[in-house]
């Protein structure tokens, strides 16, 4: 391959079952890519497009070389389907064996010597005379790999090539691929980062039919973040349980979580909020939006009890009509909270693990001995975030984004009845943002937490949020 492959604003339809949308991607001949993403994200489709699959709806695809070697489950299924079609032997009244493996490999083979060598290495020698369709799935896969590798391709696309291979064969295949990297550019579709061969130079990340990230492996930060993202997306995102020993008072199911009536907030003569009514029912996820200065954070702090004027407004929260002898800790026990202000205030020298645990105590820093169970839950959150290795590192030495992730875990750790996320993604890079959004979606799905999400980025929509409150700026 001598020219670059170029995908420009490419939209491809796959029998109306799936669509790749607006892909922009370029692959130079000296690059070796891994395409990754979650199940169903479209990574196999993207690989297959380069081998001519799908119907281009718009955009352009150029520079694809003539000879593409493709190994994938889809190609395998197609080959098997073709073989089954040949088996129209009922009209001939003979038992058709189908095409033997030898024929499948050596007919039209560009490099028979290599093919023989690979047959040997893959342990298919004894199966050469067997009919192709009698092979097991793994054997079929091996045969396809031999065919592709010995076809002298200009581009090799291997979709999950290591799946189902035993350890020895896997090592052999990896070594073989490593030996030919200078001859042919490769694109591997992989679910797992730890299977990524050393020669891979770039990673493409596909999500919901879109190519969302392309990362140079040299860029360690971006690479690690992508790793975390994939880790999060492909782990079943089991949100760790709440502390079973927690003794949160039961809430009356008949009452709303929050009921604000005729809210007025002003500083001096500046009116911030004037006459707002708002009720948040249990399980009713809300998105709050509005321009800077429209009073979003102010409104939230009336709910959390952080705003001093909560005492002069008609505020009902978690069974308390505010200003009747309740303490803010009785309110905060029902709330998980993250905001930029919290991160700014969270300036204590404590470990990452303690930051998560402090969510059980609604404190900034830890002032109480935590239980073993709480430590265990914090460990699970760290694992979920892909940050287990940083459990004991000081929080204030972490990057802004990592701090933010920990504070989000802190907010979620006790499975609060109300989870308030005030611009949780602010300052996060693209990948961390997706990671956080995925977590929020997961929390929304669960029944026991009501989510109140604040942002002004329209693209950060959360599935499951169906109620919207837009504040406008008071002039």
């Amino acid at each position: 391959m001598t020219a670059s492959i170029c995908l420009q604003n490419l939209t491809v339809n796959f029998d109306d079952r799936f669509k790749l949308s607006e892909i922009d991607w370029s692959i130079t001949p000296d690059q070796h890519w891994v395409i990754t993403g979650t199940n169903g994200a479209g990574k196999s489709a993207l690989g297959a497009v380069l081998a001519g699959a799908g119907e281009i709806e718009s955009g352009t695809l150029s520079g694809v070389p003539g000879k593409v070697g493709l190994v994938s489950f889809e190609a395998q299924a197609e080959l098997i389907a073709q073989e089954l079609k040949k088996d129209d032997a009922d009209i001939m009244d003979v038992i058709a064996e189908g095409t033997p493996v030898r024929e499948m490999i050596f007919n039209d083979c560009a490099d028979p010597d290599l093919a023989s060598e690979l047959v040997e290495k893959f342990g298919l020698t004894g199966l050469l005379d067997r009919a192709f369709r009698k092979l097991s799935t793994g054997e079929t896969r091996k045969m396809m790999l031999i065919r592709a590798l010995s076809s002298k391709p200009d581009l090799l696309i291997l979709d999950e090539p290591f799946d189902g291979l035993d350890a020895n064969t896997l090592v052999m295949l990896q070594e073989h691929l490593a030996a030919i990297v200078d001859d042919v550019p490769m694109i591997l579709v992989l679910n797992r980062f730890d299977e990524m061969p050393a020669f891979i130079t770039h990673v493409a990340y596909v999500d919901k039919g879109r190519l969302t990230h392309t990362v140079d492996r040299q860029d360690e930060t971006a690479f690690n973040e992508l790793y975390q993202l994939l880790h999060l997306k492909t782990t079943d995102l089991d949100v760790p349980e709440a502390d079973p020993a927690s003794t949160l008072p039961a809430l009356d199911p008949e009452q709303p979580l929050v009921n604000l009536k005729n809210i007025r907030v002003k500083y001096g003569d500046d009116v911030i909020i004037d006459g707002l009514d708002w009720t948040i029912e249990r399980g009713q996820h809300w998105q709050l939006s509005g321009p800077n200065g429209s009073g979003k954070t102010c409104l939230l702090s009336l709910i959390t009890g952080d705003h001093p004027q909560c005492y002069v407004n008609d505020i009902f929260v978690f069974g308390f009509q505010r200003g009747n002898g309740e303490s803010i800790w009785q309110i905060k026990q029902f709330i998980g909270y993250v905001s930029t202000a919290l991160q700014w205030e969270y300036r204590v020298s404590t470990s990452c693990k303690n930051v998560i645990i402090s969510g059980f105590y609604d404190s900034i820093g830890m002032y109480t001995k935590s239980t073993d169970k709480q430590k265990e839950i914090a460990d699970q959150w760290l694992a979920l975030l892909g940050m287990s290795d940083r459990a004991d590192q000081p929080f204030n030495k972490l990057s802004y984004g990592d701090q933010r992730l920990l504070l989000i875990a802190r907010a979620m750790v006790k499975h609060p009845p109300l989870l308030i996320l005030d611009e949780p993604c602010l300052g996060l890079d693209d990948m961390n943002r997706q990671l956080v959004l995925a977590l929020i979606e997961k929390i929304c799905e669960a029944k026991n937490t009501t989510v109140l999400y604040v942002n002004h980025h329209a693209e950060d929509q959360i599935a499951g949020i169906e109620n919207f409150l837009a504040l406008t700026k008071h002039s």
Partner: protein
Amino acid sequence: MANYFNTLPLREQLEQLGKCRFMALSEFADGVEALKGKKMVVVGCGAQGLNQGLNLRDSGLDVSYALRPEAIAEKRQSWKNATENGFTVGTYEELIPTADVVLNLTPDKQHTAVVNAVMPLMKEGACLSYSHGFNIVEEGMKIRDDLTVIMVAPKCPGSEVRAEYVRGFGVPTLIAVHEDNDPKGEGLALAKAYAVGTGGHKAGVLMSSFIAEVKSDLMGEQTILCGMLQTGSILCFDKMVEEGIDAGYASKLIQYGWETITEALKYGGVTNMLDRLSNPAKIKAFDLAEELKQIMRPLYNKHQDDIMNGNFSSGMMEDWANDDIKLHTWRAETAETNFEKTPAGDVEISEQEFFDNGILMVAMVKAGVELAFETMTAAGIIAESAYYESLHETPLIANTIARKKLYEMNATISDTAEYGCYLYNHACVPLLADFMKGIKSDVIGKGLSVEDNGVDNARLIEVNTALRSHPVEAVGSVLRGHMADMKKIV
């Protein structure tokens, strides 16, 4: 009014001075119950008044603010502080008669006027709370017999009282009951509930007496806390400039140096502060401190004596009556010192360099802390009180100097502390004149110029033993242990 302390027989003076006990968290199990549903009216809406009120309200208590009519009519800062935070504000006449507890959080100087105005309005059997005992102990204010009088004194600036509460913690707090005014025997219960309401119980509460608080607080603030750091700043700066060190560097070394070296003090006492030095520097600092202690001991004794016999407070009250003429003159002088007028240079000074090039500053802190502690305990103040009012609070003032230098530091602390600070400084600067003549840049500004860090083993052992066996280290390690238990910031 007569000095209350001086009216007591020696036996009782000693008993009151000796009161100081670190309370167990379990003693606060009743939380704010004793104050639940009671009306708390704060007089004074400065940093302590506002922030304590915010905490108490957030702990579920009923708090409002009584201000003078002119503060309300003119919408002064105190009025703004209270109303913008959603508190009920009214005049003394409107609010005091409804109060179950009146929290007097005005500056010492206003206490007599405030209490005289408030007391006739207070209802039968109510409680009057102070956060400093000067008015009772030094001015001899006599409170109506039916009223309960307590003290709750958070040992941090108001902003920190609030910030720590919001984090879910609190600041160390001293409480006391004025035994002459505890008609219903509920003083302690109210003081404990108040300390819980401000979050203080989480950081540690000391049960003390009005007398111990006043006599130790005055001694600490005017000697080691403010006085020694002020004198040290002025002398060290002038010496460095005299020695040819860049003035910007000198200014920065001092402004931030106190904070850095006393941070080590906060964590591990005088021992740890000196352990941050190389062995030769440690021995040097030790020797300088011994010399300083010898020179300054009479001054510390004089301050303690004047505090005990009431001369200090009567002198200061004379100045109050004289429109603060002395205070204002001294304040203006502070603004004119070379250190104050020289901004910190744009140079990097590493954390360790503050120690290495500030050996004399380390020696001054050591001498001041130990002298204040020794003088206080010799005068009958119990070691725990003496520790808190000397070593424990030094980093707080050092931190203020780092942020504001001397002039603003003095403006931030109480008038009482400021007056005492100047008194000390005026006596101490000339007292150290001869000593300073022998000081060179090796102990301030440049660091020791030694071939290697070798020292005599026997001498090092002697110095280390002396450091570690000082009584302030013994009580300090116990009290810091309590604090660490509670403030478990791992």
